[in-house]
């Protein structure tokens, strides 16, 4: 009878996936996602696009908050800079979309160096407050720099055409999002099992101890900021393309909260958690609407009039309930279920 994990080499310990069935199921999921744009209607497909874009953004935040333990309340700032960088480069200066995407990653990464600098001295709540301040400052800066950003009027963005392939249709754009999300997932998983990732986690667990062990706190904290902002900026560019219009109003502060809610619901510090959390948080308002409309048409009407408010209320409620009853998130719940299944009828 199997009683535990037998890992005899370091290679096995850091393997991306340690059992063949998981490879199989991941492949099945990927196949399903590739087939999805042809099977789903336009409404469901828009949800799939949002999920894939949000996964990218959530994975970006996960590097900073989940791995390195630096709380950011201003991640929407990186999202909006990424979107604007892409829009300005492609719509205003007519550069190719690939350069646009590169800019969408690099500009927030540069901005993150400015935000990250205080993080070398601050931690925990103080850092959260600085990032919060950053996201408000960036909004004002964007509104004031009218010659570049069109101010409050915003910029409209076209769906891109990369290397001769047009991503104009919804299905094609979904594939673009799927590609970026998958690459990001592999990138974060690989960062986590590398030397850099272990340094991040050491800083999260106890930064004074990490420093004593020879980890350069300044370099690694800034690296976490830059990586996280780069990925989040890419997600911002994709979101801007999805909205086909980039403006400050399109990126409300609620998105920062949503991103944190995703990490908490999924389970902090886990890439799988970020994915699960995204699926739950994105589909939650829709699921709640379905449940309510099942009971009465009146409640359904409330949902259409106060959609935005109900959405934020649900996020708040989900954050509180998960922190109270399942602090390890969906990943923690999944681990518990798996252990119960393997060990049944014994407790452990």
């Amino acid at each position, binding site marked *: 009878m199997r009683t535990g994990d037998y890992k005899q080499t370091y290679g096995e310990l850091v393997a991306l996936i340690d059992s063949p069935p998981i490879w199989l199921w991941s492949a099945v999921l990927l196949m399903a996602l590739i087939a999805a744009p042809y099977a789903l209607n336009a409404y469901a497909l828009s949800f799939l696009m949002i999920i894939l874009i949000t996964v990218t953004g959530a994975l970006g935040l996960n590097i900073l908050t989940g791995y390195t333990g630096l709380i950011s309340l201003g991640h929407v700032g990186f999202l909006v800079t990424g979107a604007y960088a892409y829009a300005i480069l492609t719509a205003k200066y007519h550069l190719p979309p690939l350069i646009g995407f590169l800019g969408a990653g690099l500009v927030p990464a540069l901005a993150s160096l400015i935000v990250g600098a205080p993080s070398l001295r601050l931690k925990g709540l103080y850092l959260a407050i*600085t990032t919060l301040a950053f996201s408000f400052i960036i909004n004002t800066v964007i509104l004031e720099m009218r010659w570049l950003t069109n101010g409050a009027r915003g910029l409209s963005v076209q769906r891109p055409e990369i290397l001769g392939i047009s991503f104009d249709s919804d299905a094609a754009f979904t594939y673009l999002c799927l590609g970026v999300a998958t690459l990001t997932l592999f990138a974060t998983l690989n960062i986590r099992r590398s030397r850099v990732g272990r340094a991040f986690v050491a800083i999260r667990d106890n930064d004074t101890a990490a420093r004593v062990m020879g980890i350069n706190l300044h370099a690694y904290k800034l690296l976490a900021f830059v990586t996280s902002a780069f990925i989040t900026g890419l997600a911002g560019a994709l979101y801007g393309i999805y909205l086909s219009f980039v403006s400050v109003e399109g990126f409300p502060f609620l998105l920062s909260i949503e991103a944190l809610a995703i990490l908490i619901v999924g389970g902090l510090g886990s890439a799988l958690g970020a994915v699960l959390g995204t699926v739950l948080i994105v589909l939650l308002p829709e699921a709640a609407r379905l449940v309510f409309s099942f009971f009465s048409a009146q409640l359904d009407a409330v949902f259409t009039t106060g959609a935005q408010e109900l959405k934020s209320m649900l996020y708040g409620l989900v*954050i509180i309930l998960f922190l109270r009853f399942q602090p390890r998130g969906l990943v923690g719940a999944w681990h518990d279920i798996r252990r119960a299944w393997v060990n049944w009828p014994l407790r452990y």
Partner: protein
Amino acid sequence: MQYLLQLLISGLAIGAIYGLIAMGFAVIYKSTGLVNFAQGEMTMITAYIAWTISTTVNGNVVVVAFGAILAAILLGLIIERVVMRPMLGEPVFATVMVTIGLAVILRSAINFIWDAYPHGLDVGMGRDIVRFGGIGVRTGQIAVIATLLALLTAIWAFFRYSKMGIAMRAVAADDRTALLMGISASRVHALAWAASSVIAGIGGVFFALSYDLSPAMFQLGLKAFPATILGGLDAVLGSGLGGLLIGITENLAGGYLGSGMKEIAGFAMIIVVLMIRPFGMFGERDIERV
């Protein structure tokens, strides 16, 4: 000169409101070690309740004042008992995230209970203009500055001399030792939440008197943040004074550099303050060991 004085006076008045809310932050931080991200929303709810009372009793000042204070106490106690107490002993990160969740819920609750339109709180006073040598000041503005100073003194005396105040300081300094000394931490927390809700609520009501009630009022909490960082998160008096400073800075920046700067002056200031003195002007530096 006239312009500068006018800016200074209105800066002091708005600063006093920030100061009151910042004191709300500091009271909770001092006794529970938490930053309450829902402070702005709690302020807003108290102001809305005051408005509801004022419309039903035709703006009787005494009734509105007592009603608002009572509502604020209840709000603080309910939030502490229902939301915060179950989180006792959990990591700070989790508890602070709970207050963020709470903030989002309260904010949308206001849109459902009341509406999304701006309202003026009218109690028949506070909007008259008094002139001091050519500078117009509203009575409400004088009242809020006076209230801030009075509360600052009262709270200083409370923490310095009263038994409960000393108990709160003990819990803040070391909650486990305080528990061993027979201090009820949960009672201290409940008192802190109620007190913070009242102090910030007074600020909110004054804001509604001078300006307007609207669902965007929760931003007061964000504006008061810099004040409490400047003064020191664990310094109640410092936060009050920090509010005045932030109010003046913001108004001067708005008056001389443009309205965009007014919005971010406070935030730019906290980033600088956090870089130089992360524990604020009057806060205590904490030393960390592995």
